[in-house]
């Protein structure tokens, strides 16, 4: 919709900054850059950037400092973390601390653009929500929050622990609202091992954009929802019940649960 939003990219490598600028200019975003945490914090205090793309590890600090700074100054920028594969765990905990997404380095043009577009949409929804709250409207018209007893990874995917020890996994309504209509879903096979924070399904949407869904837990996929295979629109209609995607036997849920946000907190 509105592609004139400002983006701040923070990375200690000029080549990556240049790449991000080039890619974002394809979609007419204007991009500002910072080579280290210090300049980044200076820039954040002076300007408002709806989207911040930030490397987790930098010579003078890490991406968590940016998140802390945003939280401290009460600015609700959407932060996308960039990280090498080695620090996926850090990235997952950054989702708990308030970043909206992360993309593993190295990434392709499409991967970055789909993430940025989701962040833009997310930001717009949140802005609208703010407006509505100010006017004392009920915010639930914008998206359906996930049910209590569910746990979510960032704002994108949820899990529900079943009594048998398995978990079912799906995507949040807010995530669906940030993407275009789903046309095709690419699955992983049953029996595949997945790790927390690793892509486990791709939604091919209108506009040829592919959105990747991150797994909220590590474990083994035991079953997938056959219904959504034939009819992906179920996910959009009932993302929390009928539209589940996988049933997973979790491997380390006790450990990984600390990176997941309990959905009951959303209703407070």
């Amino acid at each position, binding site marked *: 919709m509105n592609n004139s939003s400002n983006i701040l990219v923070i990375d200690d490598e000029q080549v990556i900054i240049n*790449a991000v600028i*080039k890619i974002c200019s394809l979609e007419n975003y204007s991009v500002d850059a910072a080579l280290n945490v210090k300049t980044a914090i200076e820039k954040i205090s002076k300007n408002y950037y709806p989207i911040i793309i930030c490397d987790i590890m930098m010579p003078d600090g890490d991406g968590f400092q940016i998140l802390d700074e945003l939280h401290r100054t009460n600015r609700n920028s959407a932060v996308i973390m960039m990280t090498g594969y080695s620090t996926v765990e850090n990235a997952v905990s950054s989702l708990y601390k308030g970043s909206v997404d992360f993309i593993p380095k190295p*990434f392709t043009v499409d991967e970055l653009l789909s993430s940025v577009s989701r962040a833009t949409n997310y930001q717009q929804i949140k802005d609208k929500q703010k407006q509505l709250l100010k006017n004392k409207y009920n915010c639930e018209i914008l998206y359906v929050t996930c049910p209590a007893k569910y746990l979510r990874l960032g704002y994108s995917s949820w899990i529900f622990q079943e009594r048998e020890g398995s978990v079912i996994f799906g995507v949040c309504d807010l995530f669906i609202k940030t993407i275009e209509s789903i046309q095709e879903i690419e699955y992983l096979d049953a029996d595949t*091992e997945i790790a927390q924070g690793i892509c486990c399904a791709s939604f091919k949407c209108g506009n040829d954009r592919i959105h990747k869904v991150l797994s909220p837990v*590590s474990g*083994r996929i035991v079953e997938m929802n056959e219904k959504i295979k034939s009819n992906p629109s179920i996910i959009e209609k009932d993302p929390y019940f009928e539209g589940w995607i996988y049933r997973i036997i979790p491997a380390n849920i*006790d450990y990984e649960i600390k990176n997941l946000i309990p959905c009951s907190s959303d209703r407070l």
Partner: protein
Amino acid sequence: MFKKIGFRLIFAVALTSLIIIGVFAYFNVKSQSDSLISEVERHANQLGETVVSSTRFDMMLNQRDRIQQTINSIGTQPQIRDVRLINKFGEIIYSSDSTNINKMVDKRAESCYACHSEDKPLEQISITERTRIFRVHPDSNRVIGIITPIYNGKSCWQAECHAHPKDQKVLGVLDVSISLAEVDKAVAIREWEIVIFALVAIIALGLLIAFFVRRWISNPVNDLLDATKQVSAGNLSYAIKEHGNDEIGKLGESFNNMTKKLSDARMQLFQSDKMASLGRLAAGVAHEINNPLTGVLTYSSFLLKRTKDNPEFQEDLKVIVRETLRSREIVKSLLDFARQSVPKKNNADINEIIDKAIAVIDNQLSINKVKIVKHTESNLPDLFVDANQMQQVFINLFVNASDAMEKNGGTITIKSQRISVSPYGSTQIKKATCSKRHSLMDNEFKIDGLPSLKVKIISDSKESLIHLDPVYGKHRNSFNLDFKNNRGTKFVCPECSISLVQQDKVCPKCSAPVLVFEIEGQGTYEVCSSENSDWEKWDFVDSAGLKEYIEVRISDTGYGINRDDLSKIFEPFFSTKGQKGNGLGLAVIWGIIDNHNGSINVESEVGKGTTFIIRLPLAQQR
């Protein structure tokens, strides 16, 4: 020379045999000499009797010439020295030595003493009392003298000649002396024989013992000595070749066993160090490559987007993007290997994990005609492990095993059991404090991937930190080399500067001060402060005794791995599968097991199969 066992043994045996032969010879020679002398004695006595009875008639007829003739003829016999006839007054009446005739014999002379000791002639005396052995000169031969008394008889006092009074009992004595030269010679020869026999026996015995000592003791002991020298010089592949089934043979066998174990342990340690550094290297490389790779991938995919109308570029750019994505996958698996992250551990049953792993690849295995045989010990206690990672380990091992058997199929045997191993060299210190309860763990400075123990040292008003190995028994301590460790050096807690030196105690190996740490709930840990000493002590762990592990053995009936490859299989990028594998599977497995404080070993025989042995600590680490 006398320090050699062989010589001591020979000396002891020679001494013993000398004593035995000596005692034996003494009694032997003595009894022989006694019997010879008694033989001579009997002979002399008989001779005396014979002379007396043969001259009796002549005496009665008082034919003195004939008596003298008889005595002379007897006296000429070679061994007879002297034959004398002495009357009751002590006068020599007849003698084979004519110069002695008519001489008086002193009653107190040796030859008379036996009878005349009481100053009166005795009537009946035994043969031994009538016998005497003497030397005429101190250097002449021994002589045996025997006296035969001539008793008064009826015919004597009735004879016409110089008739003897009737009341006289002994009329005179015949004294026969026989030389003992022959006897002495025989005894001397016998003595010499025995000395020679003893010498020969001792020499023969000595040689025999020397031979057997050399064969049974010296040679094997020297072999052992050589072997220990070789091993201490670092040649751990040295093995003692021949060993019998005696104690020394068994010692040699257990020595070989020990060196084998030692070399295994060293390999493991070496491997561990190598893997750790390779891991760091891989992580570093992967991380560094990530950024330039991002540049390549973003720019190429950017160009791909921009040149949609130009199919010629599209093809080439697609290749660049595809290959860069492939590089991304390689970096990803490299980081999988290098991942130093702490495993997410939970209590889990190892047999269950194995079952799950089997379930995952059951299909694949049955297609490859691979049979799985399980010998799992039931009721094994739960392990504190990352079940997911462990499952990955087993799946990888099963896939490898199945690949090693290829089309022909085969059997994978899985064994799990509980074992006990010594704790020294395998226990990690996780929480060390000073006496004021300040933590001394340093997460910034890691030794082999584990947080080290930090100690502040103050010397000559300079301050520095030293780091100690947290693994009990491994001594990979890091000392600041600029710092000279001397008498005035203080070792203190970095936070409160309280001394960490143990009072009234020095290192038993080098007498340097001993540092003491309190281990939460696990007693105290003591370690020598000198970088040159490897002394350390942790009573709590020592007293806990053996550490328990669960051992899982996975054997296949595949090709096996040849010796050269065996040491490399855990290295990253080492693969025998050619294009099929990236060579990271076993390296990742190694990393996972290492992160669980466990160990993985491999045994293999080409053509027969391979066995992987995984050990995971049982006691939950606090």
